């Protein structure tokens, strides 16, 4: 194996409906990039090369695509917008037989010819590494808790003032 393909995940449709359940990117993908709410994004990485981020931006009459990513982290990726999974596949090497796929591989992805899907040793190593948070991840946790605490304090004040609406 010489490269890895990490999937953000797939949107799960609601039975007999035209909507999907709320999407959450999987943890292995989020450790690469703070892109948490866009399904069918991929990161392709070969050691020594800039990772490629295939950003899912479908053309759709009914649904607005996610805006292209911006911010402090985007310069670390070669970002390419793709309108469909087939377009993502076309931008990847034709031969993926030496590529490890990380994510929930459905039938379509399984047909891409990846060499290995979630190899156990690799996933165990990566999961273990994620248990130790980087300084960046700690900063994110602190910021998130700061924002969350503001909400809790605001809610507590409302309850104390009898505005809880119960």
């Amino acid at each position, binding site marked *: 194996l010489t490269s890895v393909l990490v999937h953000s995940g797939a949107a799960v449709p609601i039975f007999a409906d035209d909507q999907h359940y709320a999407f959450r990117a999987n943890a292995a993908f989020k450790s690469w990039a703070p892109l948490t709410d866009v399904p069918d994004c991929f990161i392709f990485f070969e050691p020594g090369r800039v990772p490629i981020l295939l950003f899912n931006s479908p053309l759709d009459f009914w649904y607005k695509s996610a805006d292209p990513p911006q911010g402090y*982290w985007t310069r*670390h990726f070669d970002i390419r917008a793709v309108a469909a999974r087939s377009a993502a596949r076309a931008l990847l090497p034709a031969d993926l037989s030496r590529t490890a796929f990380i994510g929930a591989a459905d039938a379509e992805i399984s047909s891409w010819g990846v060499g290995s899907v979630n190899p156990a*040793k*690799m996933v165990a*190593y990566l999961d273990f*590494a994620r248990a130790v948070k*980087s*300084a960046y991840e700690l900063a994110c946790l602190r910021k998130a808790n700061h924002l969350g605490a503001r909400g809790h304090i605001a809610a507590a004040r409302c309850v104390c003032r009898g505005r809880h609406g119960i």
Partner: protein
Amino acid sequence: MPDRALDFDTLFAEHSEAVRERYATRSPSRI
């Protein structure tokens, strides 16, 4: 002393390098 915790640009650069190194040194090459 500046609040380094809010310098997400620098912090992410370090994080990104660590993630790439994590994949490069252990996986997939040594599996």
